[in-house]
């Protein structure tokens, strides 16, 4: 249960330590000094060079080099540009961005202004989901306080740099985390992605050059300016610099946030920071990258976490959701769960995603109902590949990943479902079977009286029977029997 200083907090540096509704608390922690340093002492080119040298990559999941993105947007000629903060955090079990916005909103505002200074934008927009009311309220307070001090607004710190920040609300659609869909949503259009290029850096919000970065990416920027690129790029691995915040959830003891240097292993995050598995059960899998990522087995626990390593083992960094599963979780059911999410969240624009994922889900449903065949597993693989290759945006291109990674890493569980008609984790109800062992049954009638569907018959003081065609596998008989006369197979 201990955390022997595995955590190193850059993006979360102030979270839980300062009052997010008091700008003075942020200023006391050198808040807005990075912005001041940039606009008073450095040219936009110098700031961009610093960010490039730091090696900072997008923390929303894509991993695109942040400095390069800023440079591209800067180099597009236009008298109106925008800085957009992507706060449309939507992965199941992910809450890194919410915590940053609720705990340290000024760090994001400061970095957006720095970005605006670099690319030549006078307006910043935060796209945040309406489901984050507390984060919205704290952002509003933060913007107001920063404006009152003149740290955001016109002629910041006596310079000729003007920058204002406004909020834009999303309705909580997962696809709106994709930057083109996000921009369309902000424009009042349907939240559907469009083909890239043109990239938002060239033609984004209202057709103007727009730099979109994630909350955590922005939150790291002021530290890079204050401490220097060379301080930052000493942390992490060769191609992934700095730290990453993970939201630990699932069957892990210490549910919460962990910010670790890149290169920390999954084992360190789950077992040292996360305190291991609940009730001492056995670790089965960890899911990273949300609905776009993959499920890794215990064989991958010692992989050092970075963008490239996770892709190499068939998952991805994603925005930082980390869901831990134990021996009681059925991996086919997990794949089905993620597909359900994707189905709900697919915008429906392109066929492979809209229809393909529906078919994937149907096949998974068939397997978990005990009606699947080995051929179905092959179908899943082929269809997954087609969806990946032909979908328009990141959502569809990655939606089959949970299916493919569970087949690759937990193929035996799929086989058990289709060949043996068994769910090894005992989760797929259709594959469970409750039976009464005649020799042990005393005919006490307890199970008979508790069965909600009348599936149990038998005379008092003689063995009872379960009618499998009526049984709904609720397990009440199993729990109630005092003589261990009921088996679960």
């Amino acid at each position: 249960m201990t955390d022997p200083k595995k955590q190193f907090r850059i993006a979360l540096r102030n979270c839980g330590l300062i009052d997010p509704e008091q700008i003075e608390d942020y200023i006391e922690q050198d808040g807005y000094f990075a912005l001041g340093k940039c606009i008073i002492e450095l040219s936009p080119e110098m700031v961009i060079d610093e960010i490039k040298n730091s090696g900072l990559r997008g923390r929303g999941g894509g991993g695109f080099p942040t400095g390069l993105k800023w440079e591209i947007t800067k180099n597009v000629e236009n008298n109106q540009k925008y800085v957009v903060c992507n706060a449309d955090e939507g992965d199941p079990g992910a809450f890194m961005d919410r915590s940053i916005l609720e705990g340290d909103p000024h760090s994001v505002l400061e970095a957006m202004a720095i970005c605006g200074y670099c690319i030549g934008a006078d307006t910043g927009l935060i796209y945040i989901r309406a489901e984050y009311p507390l984060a919205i309220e704290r952002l509003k307070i933060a913007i107001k306080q920063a404006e009152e001090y003149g740290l955001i607004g016109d002629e910041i710190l006596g310079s000729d740099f003007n920058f204002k920040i406004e909020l834009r609300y999303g309705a909580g659609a997962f696809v709106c985390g994709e930057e083109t869909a996000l921009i369309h949503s902000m424009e009042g259009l349907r939240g559907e992605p469009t083909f890239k290029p043109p990239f938002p850096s060239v033609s984004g919000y209202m057709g103007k050059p727009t730099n979109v970065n994630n909350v955590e990416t922005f939150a790291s920027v002021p530290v890079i300016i204050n401490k220097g690129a060379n301080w930052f790029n000493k942390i992490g691995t060769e191609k992934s610099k700095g730290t990453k915040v993970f939201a630990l959830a699932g069957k892990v003891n210490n549910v919460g946030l962990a910010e670790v240097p890149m290169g920390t292993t999954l084992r360190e995050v789950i077992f040292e920071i996360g305190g291991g598995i609940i009730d001492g059960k056995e670790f089965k899998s960890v899911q990273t990258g949300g609905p776009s990522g993959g499920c890794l087995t215990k064989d991958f626990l010692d992989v050092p976490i970075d963008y490239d390593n996770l892709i190499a083992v068939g998952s991805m960094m994603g925005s930082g959701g980390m869901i831990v599963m134990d021996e009681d979780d059925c991996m086919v059911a997990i794949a089905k769960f993620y597909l359900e999410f994707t189905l709900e969240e697919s915008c429906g624009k392109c066929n492979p995603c809209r229809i393909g994922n529906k078919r994937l889900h149907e096949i998974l449903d068939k397997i978990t109902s005990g009606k699947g065949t080995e051929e179905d597993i092959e179908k899943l693989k082929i269809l997954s590949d087609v969806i990946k290759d032909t979908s328009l945006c990141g959502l569809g291109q990655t939606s089959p990943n949970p299916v493919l990674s569970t087949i690759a890493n937990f193929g035996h569980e799929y086989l058990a479902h289709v060949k043996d008609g068994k769910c090894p984790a005992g989760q797929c109800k259709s594959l469970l079977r409750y039976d009464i062992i005649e020799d042990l049954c005393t005919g006490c009638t307890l199970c008979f009286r508790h069965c909600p569907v009348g599936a149990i018959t038998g005379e008092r003081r003689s063995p009872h029977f379960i009618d499998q065609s009526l049984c709904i596998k609720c397990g009440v008989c199993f729990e109630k029997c005092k003589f261990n006369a009921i088996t679960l197979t």
Partner: protein
Amino acid sequence: MLSELKNNHHLSIMTKIKTLTDLKHLKDKIQLKNGLGKSGDKSEQIIQIKVGMATCGIASGAKEVMKYLIEECEHLAVDANVKQTGCLGYCYAEPMIEVLIPGSKPKVFGYVNNKKVREIIENYIIKGEQVEGEIPISFKTINN
């Protein structure tokens, strides 16, 4: 939010910061007020109690804990600055409060309810005794 609960006010009516030097002066002024500056007189520091008030904390009952904490500090005549913070990242142990007594190491308590608040004030803050329920916090930040 919770403005009615807070006893932490802005330093003064905000004046625009027009230069980098102004910003530095403001930081010095804040540090001085919090007794952490070079010339800060440590003896004047008062007890600080921080309550985790992010979504995770509030969902676990942090609002009530903070309200009770403020009432009990007044009731038991403990001069403390009770303030809200965001999420410390140990969501499983919410509601959490951090107690900083000048001259002592900060202590973070988890799974706090009203009963625990009273215990912490009476036994830890007033009497200086050990109180159970401490959550070991040991992450490094950019400043250490």
